[in-house]
């Protein structure tokens, strides 16, 4: 078998023992890797219905098919557990060295079971596994923890995925960080903390061989060179932060907790501004010839020296969305999230919920009183100092930070129950996960994609904004094409998330990013790596299977049609300013589009998956358990 070792490593934290599970080539042909294989491992190893913080919720890593080869942007892994935010599948991706080290240690996947009594970190040294005392690492930020582990093991080739202090403190939206990249969403950090697992470290020393290295080198070389041209210029030159002004122009830049879609000071928090005033260097994940990470630094003022990588989703959440026009405050906020090990998107949107709640009198200065801030804080929109202080309170679980550390869904539910308020009306989440940086009221197809997302509303798991923004459809109205568009764009994204390949390479295969442009080349890459004979249709199936297993997981955890919904604001309150003013997605529109979507997927009208469909996709055991 090429491209895979055929081995999954199981680690039990309770007994501190390990075992190896063999998988067949046919199994890999169905599940491939990344989010699909990670979800499948979770499906196989979880106790259905368990509490996400219980020992029965496993941590599942799945490597990528191309990790450790010269295939551009193939150095990524998938991470899955039941999400403590949504109660459904929590599937994330992260890039860079960790996946490659894991590949060279010869593991296709790792499943971590149980919980530990004391804080530990796991060291996977090729085939050997050590359970190591993590007490010296406690309280360290993500980057510092990685360095400390390299020091302790005296090898700078050791790669670690860690949680930061926010994770240790059980911030619900804490995440997992490796090599400066994050498995960012759905709350993996708090799941790890519930297991007293501070880090997973890997040293992989073995070489990787593929079925047809000459072909793979030739293809990779051409893609590497194409990735220096116009197909990636957006990512290479300014990075994704270039979207701030693009979104603002369309009236889609979430502003002041999604009250509006235009920000009057967008220029001051734009990619262009960041590039000119704060950029230090652009860096890449391992195995990536594009390089999009804009390392940016605060140069003056109270946060001078703060530095982290800035991309669009983190930036909008912590600038326009907070009414903040000081780029330095935004960088500091994102640094707190990155070093502390929190999802900067969920953190920003929880802060914006708190700001609106403060302005509406639901939260008061009193709520912020603590040792560091004895007079409390005035957390109004635009107040960068208060936002930074509150972010630290979230990370450290101080005063109102405790409430906010649970995310917008739980924070609003708790406050509304306690104070008889209606703050759920501005809690920007669906299924318990905070929304992405595309204002869905001006993007009807994307509003459907967000509602049906298996891990919650996500810009990465669906590209449904694409036909809206490109003008393939009218982005303000609803018609009978939207179900098929949502299906097709989410399965397109799922192909990349499963291999996984970073989507920023999508135009570099042939110049065209659509299926016809990308699938034949992706099939060639798979075949040269594994020796299989994949064709166009097989690539399509990768995406359909990935989404199906995620949905099946959710159904087994109790998903119902009513869970596919949108934040109250997106369904009831039109924006008043800019090109997207006046629009929202009504209940009738959403239900109509959901009908279309379930039909396009080949599911029944309740969103349940027919047995036959599951068998057709090669999932007889799934059909047995949840098929209708």
């Amino acid at each position, binding site marked *: 078998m090429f491209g895979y070792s055929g081995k999954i490593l199981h680690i039990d934290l309770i007994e501190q023992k390990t075992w190896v599970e063999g998988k067949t080539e046919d199994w890999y042909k169905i599940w491939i890797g990344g989010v699909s294989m990670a979800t499948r491992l979770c499906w196989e190893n979880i106790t259905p219905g368990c509490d996400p913080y219980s020992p029965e919720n496993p941590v599942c890593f799945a490597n990528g098919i191309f990790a*450790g080869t010269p295939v551009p942007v193939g150095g990524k892994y998938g991470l899955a557990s039941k999400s403590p935010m949504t109660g459904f599948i929590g599937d994330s991706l992260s890039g860079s060295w960790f996946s490659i080290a894991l590949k060279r240690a010869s593991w296709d996947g790792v499943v971590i079971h149980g919980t530990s009594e004391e804080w530990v970190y796991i060291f996977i040294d090729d085939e050997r596994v050590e359970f190591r005392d993590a007490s010296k690492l406690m309280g360290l930020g993500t980057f510092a923890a990685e360095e400390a582990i390299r020091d302790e093991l005296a090898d700078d080739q050791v790669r670690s995925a860690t949680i930061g202090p926010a994770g240790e403190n059980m911030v619900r939206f804490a995440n997992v960080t490796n090599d400066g990249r994050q498995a960012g969403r759905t709350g993996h950090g708090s799941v790890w903390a519930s297991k007293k697992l501070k880090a997973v470290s890997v040293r992989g020393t073995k070489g990787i061989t593929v079925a047809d290295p000459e072909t793979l080198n030739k293809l990779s070389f051409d893609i590497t060179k194409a990735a220096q041209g116009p197909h990636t210029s957006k990512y290479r030159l300014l990075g994704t932060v270039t979207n701030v002004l693009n979104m603002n122009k369309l009236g889609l830049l979430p502003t002041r907790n999604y009250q509006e879609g235009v920000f009057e000071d967008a220029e001051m928090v734009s990619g262009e501004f960041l590039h000119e005033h704060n950029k230090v260097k652009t860096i890449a994940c391992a195995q990536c010839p594009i390089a999009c990470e804009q390392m940016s630094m605060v140069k003056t003022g109270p946060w001078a020296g703060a530095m982290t990588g800035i991309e669009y989703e983190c930036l909008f959440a912590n600038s326009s969305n907070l009414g903040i026009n000081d780029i330095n405050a935004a960088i500091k906020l994102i640094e707190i999230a990155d070093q502390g090990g929190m999802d900067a998107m969920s953190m920003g949107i929880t802060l914006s919920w708190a700001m609106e709640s403060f302005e509406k009198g639901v939260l008061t200065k009193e709520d912020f009183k603590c040792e560091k801030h004895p007079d409390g804080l005035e957390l109004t929109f635009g107040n960068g100092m208060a936002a930074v202080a509150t972010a630290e309170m979230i990370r450290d679980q101080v005063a109102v930070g405790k409430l906010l550390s649970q995310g917008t869904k739980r924070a609003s539910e708790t406050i509304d129950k306690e104070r008889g308020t209606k703050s759920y009306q501005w809690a920007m989440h669906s299924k318990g996960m905070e929304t992405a940086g595309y204002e869905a009221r001006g993007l009807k197809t994307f509003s459907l994609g967000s509602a049906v997302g298996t891990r919650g509303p996500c810009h990465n798991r669906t590209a449904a904004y694409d036909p809206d923004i490109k003008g393939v459809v009218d982005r303000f109205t609803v018609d009978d094409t939207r179900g098929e568009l949502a299906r097709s764009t989410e399965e397109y994204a799922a192909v990349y998330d499963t291999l996984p390949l970073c989507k920023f390479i999508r135009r570099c295969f042939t110049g065209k990013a659509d299926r016809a442009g990308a699938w034949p080349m992706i099939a060639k890459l798979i075949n040269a790596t594994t020796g299989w004979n994949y064709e166009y249709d097989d690539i399509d199936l990768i995406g359909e299977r990935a989404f199906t297993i995620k949905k099946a997981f959710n159904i087994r955890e109790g998903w119902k049609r009513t869970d596919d919904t949108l934040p109250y604001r997106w369904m009831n309150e039109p924006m008043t300013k800019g090109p997207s003013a006046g629009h929202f997605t009504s209940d009738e529109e959403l239900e109509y589009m959901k009908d279309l979507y379930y039909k396009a997927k080949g599911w029944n009208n309740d969103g349940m998956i027919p047995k036959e469909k599951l068998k057709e996709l090669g999932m007889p055991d799934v059909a047995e358990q949840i098929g209708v």
Partner: protein
Amino acid sequence: MAVSTSKFNYIDCDPDLCIGCQICEYVCSYTKNGEYNTYHSRIRTVRVDEVLITAIACRTCENAPCVISCPQKALSQDPETGTIRLEATKCDGCAWCIDACDFGAISMNHEARLVEICDQCENEEDGPQCVLWCPKEALALTTPEQRAQKSRRELIKQEVIGPK
């Protein structure tokens, strides 16, 4: 500390351009060992912190300390190119040369018990593969004198025309 001579080529990396992707290491290990394994790359990327990233390979030093230190006389320096040659039958993998190299540019192949040193891909028609593949043109086959010239030219351009 040993120095590079002004006459020999070596693989130079511009830290301002290097993005830390490690593609050079993949290509090197494949070219030299037939498998992708950065442990067997003769060029190594170094990430000191989040932004200080570069790559290092043999600097073709004058009076190369690795050659002097080799107790088995397995290493010699090509007088034409400055590259270090290994006589495999003599090398016993004692690693003295690794100790002697100030650039950390020599690594041990534990399976073969032989050391591995950059030879600038002398057997490849199109020259050093890392230079050929480097997506950001951070790598170059150059001499210290050529590099100094480049720095001088860039400095003058910046001072006269202004920053890029």
